[in-house]
């Protein structure tokens, strides 16, 4: 047996009985095929609910009444193919979970990978993980689909043609040998690397080359933070932020709950610090200054909408106010602060000062000057050592934008002999990407490790595709003296090879006799005996002993105020580029789940857009969906066209555009969505999803800036409709339709202020939405729910709307992707949606945002059940609203009669013809056919599994044994599922909270899902929202 086959974490591939995809299987001793292949993948590909041919023939044969009957009444044969040699620890039909580390972004959250019959089908958060603490964001959830991406390269390429590893290795080592000798210029371009082993292997590799240099590049770089710390603390570190310890949090354009550095960890910490009635009680104050509406801004107690220039001024003002209190100098050039709410900033400074050592100020800017001021503020507030830790930080390289620009110059001058590219795509991501593309080929040898053909990798002579991270070994430095481990959870699908193995192989001249090292060996070598290997792999992380890093004391002389940024001239708008929660820098452009995840703020799918304020739109005569031309002031070439979106809460002088769109990968969605006469394409006019805004990035002051430039905006005469899942945005009904005396605000989402809640311990009365403990029934109570009674409580205070639950639910329950047109027709299939409402705040132009996850409420008096003619939906003995797909005839009466509108109808047969992507389907869940209603089941498959396991063990189901996919993934822990009949269960305790209410209680449908009202840390008078 080869060295890998004896390890338990290897699983075999499923070999498809239809043979329509042939997966190259590396020479392994056994070709093991699980018994289930007849059943499970079929579930994905066969429409399970149709009348089978055999049935038809049987019926027809009988009707024609003759001998043909004997020939045709039998089934098309279903095969059952067993293993040749049964691997231990694999039982077909049973899921196994392996701990690993998510590599979908740099954060390195802990994973539990669910593996069924040899394939990874679901990623879950690892609750024991020291950083992510059990949550997993939408991007991480969706990254499992990357495994089954048919665009992945399936073998090495040499000049665009399929090659063997031996051939490629031979050719590359030959050339590298020559370069080692003549000291050629070799450039290795990677992303910011946080894997110690990868760093070590790279060092090892580069050692042999005299003229070698490692260049790192990230679009969403944290370089400014690291460089600022270099300046102020003589340490190039990315600090650990402890949001849970902070009582006052101030964010300056840092979307730490959405996209900034490590949103899952930060959300967990932030939520932990905001508990109105869950022990331990604590409730931080959170103010956010930002130029666009971010997830973080939506959750802030006070959101201040500013231009990028005002942002800098505000920081200066805050810094000088604090400096005054601390008695340290902070010189601010006299700048115009008239447009700022100076009183508020002064008050904020007082709050911060009062809570010094327990406060936290974060800044998301790419500008070193701003980060230096941020460091100064935190230093003045004595936050270093308490809420900010720079002693045990993640060993993470920082990507300096300067380096990539000088690499470009080198390439252009033709002085680079060899360019080795990791999975980076500067051609797409750089503003001058086309120059880069043109210059690549000037390098003598171009090798790429990209797992697919990108605009960058297509220029490579050799492509040595890396494994997907779920197929390979790895590690990641997490900070806090933790290291996360990544292990392969299934055998590589394709003939790919870990980058670690490739680089290690090329580290020696071809003549040197060294044993081939697997990626596993390389990772083990890094850690040796410093970690207990088996435990570390089992847990997915390990604690290491490391000396605290020491830098110099705070260097006050490095601090200077942020230079007053350029003013926005009249008629122009300040540009803000930002990463979207799902798409980030475009790395997820091939993932349909993430494209169809509604943006937490705008609820738009499948597009990016230019967000402008309502006043600006009125002034310019622009409406949502009008295509506008955005021109960067300095050059008319730097212009993009994309649809406009009128965004409440946006600053009037700002236009915000998401990066990561218009990616060439998105061209694959050309045929996405059901085919029918009036179908409209998912792709825009450019043949892509959205428009690439990277052109508008500006390289300034040594780094690429996402914001601050002035742009001209101009209306074109085209329209491009934006697919939004929510038409009506306000929680208040239109005033024109108001009957005098009628409550304008609907009490779906209840909110209160911390002050009021602390005083009353309960919610304010909202007209009809008074607490209806038991309205009573007209009929006898025939259904007492004596066993379990499943229920759910969702805390709106901690819910950020990040949509991890939405994607998690979609993956767990085989929810189809329907495409832009269908979403625009309001036929999105998500079982769990997050309702987003705006409501008036203290300032008219700065509305509050409210997020409310809504799934099937599993009403005990379910209106949907009563109206179903065929009992396709009925109530279970444990309070579940059950939907039986195969009984459904599709009258849609249930959906009409659902007051929450959570039911989803299969309007078409949604395509499941990507056989490879079908491998990510959950085999425990039916793939629904056309004409059938579906909806959230409270993940009944998990309930049933827990029940069966408990029965087998003879034990009752314990609280927490069952965690639906949404709860499992929630970084904030906002969703709690459990038995409402068990007074000790977590959900029962939440139901007793004074904040608990049920949506539309007054219609007495008795939902099993309850909500905990949104609490904002405000004084009562501060909140203008209606209280009845």
């Amino acid at each position, binding site marked *: 047996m080869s060295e890998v086959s004896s390890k338990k974490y290897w699983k075999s591939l499923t070999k498809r009985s239809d043979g329509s995809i042939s997966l190259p299987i590396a020479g392994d001793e056994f070709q093991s095929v699980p018994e289930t292949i007849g059943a499970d993948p079929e579930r994905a590909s066969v429409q399970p609910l149709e009348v089978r041919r055999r049935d038809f023939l049987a019926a027809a044969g009988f009707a024609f009444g003759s001998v043909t009957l*004997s020939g045709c009444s039998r089934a098309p044969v*279903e*095969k059952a*193919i067993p*293993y040749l040699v*049964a691997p231990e620890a694999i039982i077909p039909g049973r899921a196994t979970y392996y701990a690993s580390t998510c590599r979908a972004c740099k954060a390195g959250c802990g994973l539990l990978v669910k593996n069924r019959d040899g394939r990874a089908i679901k990623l879950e958060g690892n609750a024991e993980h020291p950083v992510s603490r059990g949550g997993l964001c939408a991007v991480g959830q969706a990254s499992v689909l990357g495994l089954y991406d048919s665009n992945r390269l399936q073998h090495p390429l040499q000049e665009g043609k399929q090659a063997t590893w031996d051939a490629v290795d031979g050719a590359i080592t030959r050339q590298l040998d020559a370069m080692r000798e003549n000291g050629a210029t070799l450039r290795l371009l990677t992303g910011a690397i946080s894997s110690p082993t990868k760093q070590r292997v790279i060092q090892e590799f580069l050692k042999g080359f005299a003229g070698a240099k490692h260049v790192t590049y990230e679009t969403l770089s944290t370089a400014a933070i690291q460089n600022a710390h270099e300046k102020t603390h003589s340490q190039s570190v990315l600090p650990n932020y402890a949001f849970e310890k902070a009582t006052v949090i101030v964010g300056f354009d840092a979307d730490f709950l959405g996209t900034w550095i490590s949103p899952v960890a930060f959300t967990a910490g932030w939520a932990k610090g905001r508990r109105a009635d869950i022990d331990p009680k604590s409730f931080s104050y959170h103010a956010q200054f930002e130029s666009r509406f971010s997830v973080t801004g939506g959750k802030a107690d006070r959101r201040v909408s500013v231009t990028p220039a005002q942002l800098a001024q505000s920081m200066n003002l805050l810094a000088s106010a604090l400096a005054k209190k601390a008695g340290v100098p902070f010189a601010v050039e006299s700048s115009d602060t008239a447009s700022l709410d100076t009183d508020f900033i002064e008050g904020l400074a007082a709050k911060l000062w009062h809570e010094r050592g327990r406060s936290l100020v974060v800044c998301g800017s790419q500008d070193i000057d701003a980060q230096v001021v941020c460091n100064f503020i935190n230093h003045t507030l004595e936050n270093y050592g308490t809420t900010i830790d720079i002693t045990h930080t993640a060993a993470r390289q920082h990507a300096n934008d300067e380096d990539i620009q000088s690499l470009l110059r080198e390439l252009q001058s033709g002085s680079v002999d060899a360019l080795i590219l990791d999975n980076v795509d500067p051609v797409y991501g750089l503003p001058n990407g086309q120059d880069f593309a043109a210059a690549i080929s000037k390098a003598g040898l171009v090798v790429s490790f990209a797992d697919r053909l990108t605009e960058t990798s297509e220029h490579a002579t050799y492509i040595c595709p890396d494994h997907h991270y779920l197929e390979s070994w790895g590690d990641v430095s997490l900070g806090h003296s933790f290291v996360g481990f990544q292990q392969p959870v299934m055998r590589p699908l394709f003939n790919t090879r870990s980058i670690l193995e490739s680089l290690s192989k090329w580290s020696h001249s071809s003549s040197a006799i060294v044993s081939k090292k697997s990626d596993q060996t390389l990772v083990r070598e890094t850690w040796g005996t410093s970690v207990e290997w088996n435990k570390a792999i089992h847990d997915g992380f390990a604690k290491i002993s490391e000396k605290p890093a020491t830098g110099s004391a705070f260097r006050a002389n490095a601090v200077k105020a942020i230079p007053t940024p350029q003013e926005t001239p009249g008629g122009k708008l300040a540009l803000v580029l930002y990463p979207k929660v799902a798409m980030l820098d475009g790395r997820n452009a091939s993932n349909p789940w993430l494209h169809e995840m509604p943006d937490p703020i705008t609820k738009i799918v499948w597009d990016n857009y230019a967000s402008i304020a309502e006043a600006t739109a009125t002034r310019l005569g622009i409406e949502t969906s009008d295509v506008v031309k955005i021109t960067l002031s300095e050059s008319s070439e730097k212009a993009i066209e994309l649809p406009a979106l009128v965004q409440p809460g946006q600053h009037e002088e700002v236009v915000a555009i998401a990066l990561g769109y218009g990616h060439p990968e998105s061209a694959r969605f050309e045929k996405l969505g059901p085919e029918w006469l009036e179908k409209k394409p998912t792709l825009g006019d450019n043949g892509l999803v959205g428009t690439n805004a990277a052109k508008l990035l500006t390289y300034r002051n040594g780094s690429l800036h996402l914001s601050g430039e002035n742009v001209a905006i101009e209306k074109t005469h085209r329209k491009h409709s934006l697919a939004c899942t929510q038409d009506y945005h306000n929680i208040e009904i239109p005033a024109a339709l108001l009957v005098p005396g009628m409550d304008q605000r609907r009490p779906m989402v209840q909110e209160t202020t911390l002050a009021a809640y602390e005083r009353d311990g309960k919610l304010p009365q909202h007209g009809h939405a008074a607490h209806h403990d038991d309205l009573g029934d007209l009929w006898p109570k025939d259904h007492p729910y004596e066993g379990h009674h499943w229920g759910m409580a969702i805390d709106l205070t901690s819910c950020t709307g990040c949509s991890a639950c939405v994607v998690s639910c979609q993956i767990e329950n085989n929810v189809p992707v329907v495409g832009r047109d269908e979403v625009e027709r309001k036929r999105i299939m998500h079982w769990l949606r997050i309702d987003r409402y705006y409501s008036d705040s203290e300032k008219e132009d700065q509305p509050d945002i409210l997020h409310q996850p809504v799934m099937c409420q599993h009403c005990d008096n379910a209106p949907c059940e009563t109206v179903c003619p065929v009992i396709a939906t009925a109530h279970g003995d444990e309070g579940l609203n*059950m939907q039986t*797909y195969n009984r459904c005839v599709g009258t849609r009466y249930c959906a009409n009669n659902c007051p929450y509108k959570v039911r989803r109808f299969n309007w078409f047969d949604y395509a499941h013809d990507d056989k490879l992507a079908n491998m990510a389907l959950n085999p425990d869940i039916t793939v629904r056919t056309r004409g059938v209603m579906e909806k959230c089941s409270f993940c009944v498959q998990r309930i049933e599994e827990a029940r069966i396991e408990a029965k087998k063990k003879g034990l009752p189901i314990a609280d927490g044994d069952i965690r639906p996919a949404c709860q499992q993934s929630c970084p904030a822990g906002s969703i709690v599922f459990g038995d409402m009949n068990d007074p000790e269960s977590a959900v029962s305790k939440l139901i007793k909270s004074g904040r608990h209410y049920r949506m539309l209680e007054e219609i007495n449908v008795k939902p099993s899902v309850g909500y905990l009202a949104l609490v904002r840390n405000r004084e009562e008078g501060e909140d203008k929202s209606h209280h009845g």
Partner: protein
Amino acid sequence: MLTRDNKSQTVMVVLLIGAVFSLATLVARLGAFHIPGNHQGYAPEQPIAFSHRLHAGELLIDCKYCHHGAETSRHAGIPATSVCMNCHSIVTDTLGSLRAEDELAKEENRKARRMVSKELQKIYDALALDEEMKQKPGQSPEPIEWIKVHNLPDLVYFNHSAHVSMDVACERCHGAVETMERVRQVEDLSMGWCVNCHRTVNEIGVAGTPVDASLDCAACHY
């Protein structure tokens, strides 16, 4: 030559015979008619004529020796070919012919020849084993494609372990497999059949032990 009258008479007779034959066939097959989806009595020919009667009936091998998934998983599982080899690496033919050869060899004072039954040879071929039970070079093993006998539609979730761990006997659903040369689907495996068993055991229990067999739709359909 037939006259015209004769001709039509002949046609009538043929038609009549045809009609009677069809009717007779129809009536004969009526008993075997199942409503669509019911495959009671299905007994497909398997690639290897494995006899459950011999293994389970005569040799009294426990069901779960081969179908070990039944205790732990939703699938009972088809045994891996390696499980067959636990015995059949030694037992290469029927006991009778092996013994006969042994005796013959003793009589003729020679080493017993290797006896391999036609059916068992298929296992060795699948595993690409030579006479020495060594892997044949250059040949890769191929799994045996058995034909599933008990097919539930994909819309129903059935978990073997939930039933086996509650001491539901295998025969309850699969019939007396130990008497079957070739396995046949004994029960109709209809929803009503499942539901009625669930109803019954809720009243009388399984083997005297009270059980809680769910009648919820979502116990099987999701």
